[in-house]
């Protein structure tokens, strides 16, 4: 995932966590909301699957990439 994509996925989860209305909209039409949030299609499949392990590991691995980029290692 690129930095921009990681930020996109992260922002999506932040909005879901902060905004109950946004979450309701997601539950009513997940694909539309994820398209609006610019979630890459392959990540949409993972999120829609509801598989906690896959979602968390996808984000976990992305985290490492994110940190490496942001700390200029």
């Amino acid at each position, binding site marked *: 995932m690129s930095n921009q994509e990681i930020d996109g996925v992260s922002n999506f989860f932040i909005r879901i*966590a902060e905004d109950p209305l946004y979450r309701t909209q997601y539950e009513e039409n997940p694909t539309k909301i994820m398209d609006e949030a610019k979630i890459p299609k392959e990540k949409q499949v993972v999120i829609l699957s*509801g598989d*906690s392990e896959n*979602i968390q590991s996808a*984000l976990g691995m992305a985290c490492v990439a994110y940190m490496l980029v942001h700390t200029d290692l």
Partner: protein
Amino acid sequence: MKSRKKGSLTIVGSGIELVRDTTIGARIAIERADKVLTLVTNPATELWIKKLNSKVESLFDCYVDGRPRLEAYNAMVKRILKNVQYGLEVCVVFYGHPGVFVKPAHESIRAARHEGFTARMLPGISAEDCLFADIGVDPGTFGCQSFEATDFILHKRKFDPKSPLILWQIGSIGDLYYHSDNYISDMSIRGLKILTQTLEEHYDKDHEIIIYQASILPLCQPLIQRIPLTRIHEAKIGAASTMYIPPNGPQNSDEDMIHKLGMVPIKIN
């Protein structure tokens, strides 16, 4: 009253699940700080903290793959102290509860106070708190014993199988090194076998245990695997996995103690 040096340290926890678990006190401390240092485990939390306060810096680069975790902790303490010594109001955000399994948090507090700075820690939501909620366990019923898995094996900790037992970090038994992935090392696999053998001395082989991992994101469910003790090797275990072992056998009260305490049966309508 003795005057304190300029500069202070507040250590807070982000909790486990994004946004939901960060306390109001922690959020205020983050927003008001001159500098925020973070050690959190996912980019969403990192980004959210950045939205609360733009003067944020990650401590994640203190970790070096394949190097002892203790080296990373020492580097974190140095960097935290350096910022406090500059005279800044520093807030450090650790994942979960900042005082639970977070050696550099306690070390930083001690070092800052030793140098005459004001330093405090705010409690947060730990993985244990999530476990109680997700599995439905009340430590007030049969008590609760909690050990770090390596410590449990190394020191042959005494425990009561009739009280719940929680073992932390079962995915990194005996492994003192940092690994950036969530997979467990050969050393930890060996450690898990030793742990199973130890537990088999105290529990029935078909005693059901739970391998647990809290959810870190909204929309996700916690990972709860129920499996007989002898089949632990079949469970998916990662660095963040925890083992919960329910009590074994009936709870027998001591008749003599009931008499000494003067307890009498009560009838509930």
